[in-house]
């Protein structure tokens, strides 16, 4: 099987996610960037699973999807909490504490 292409795609997605987390300031955008990171890892697992003819990778991917759903649920809850108090979801306005 030709693995270089999906692995490169996954690396590209991971880079986009890292860029998103570091550069974006919108709370929901940050959540999406984190999702992108996790999805890229999932893609890797599935590719390796096919390559090694070992279904373990697929099973791990399922677990990750389930766990990530819970994580995003909490992320949305925290963003909502921020929005209710400050009517903004911009993360760079979180600067009560420094150094």
């Amino acid at each position: 099987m030709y693995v270089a292409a999906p692995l490169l795609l996954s690396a590209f997605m991971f880079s986009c996610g890292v860029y998103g987390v570091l550069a974006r300031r919108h709370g929901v955008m940050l959540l999406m960037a984190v999702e992108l990171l996790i999805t890229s890892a999932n893609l890797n697992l599935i590719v390796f699973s096919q390559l090694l003819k070992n279904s373990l990778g697929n099973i791990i991917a399922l677990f990750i999807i389930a766990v990530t759903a819970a994580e995003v649920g909490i992320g949305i809850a925290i963003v909502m909490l921020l929005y209710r108090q400050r009517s903004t979801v911009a993360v760079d306005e979180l600067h009560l504490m420094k150094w």
Partner: protein
Amino acid sequence: MLASYLPIAFLLILAGAFALVSVTLSRLISPKDPSPQKLMPYECGIAEIDPPVERFPVRFYLVAMLFVIFDVEVILFFPWALSFKSFPVFSLIAMSVFIFMLGVAFVYEWRNGGLEWD
């Protein structure tokens, strides 16, 4: 191996082409006669000064959040259900525990008013 993906590629091309054709076609044949009145958001009344306040439907997000969690947890059932005949009894117990825990979360959510849409 790649040949088996051909129908999907074909479908993608078809879908893309259809979208492109319909958008350009409607551009080309639709009547265009703009005037200031037509471009206003409302037919009558006072022209708005500020853009409307952005709505943030909190109830919707709450329900969506709870839905996503319960929805996605169900994917763990599928692989188990497909092959559970080849598993020992332990897997049945493990799955019952999992369902029980989801049930506890659900009861908690229900009793605390997470499902009420007011």
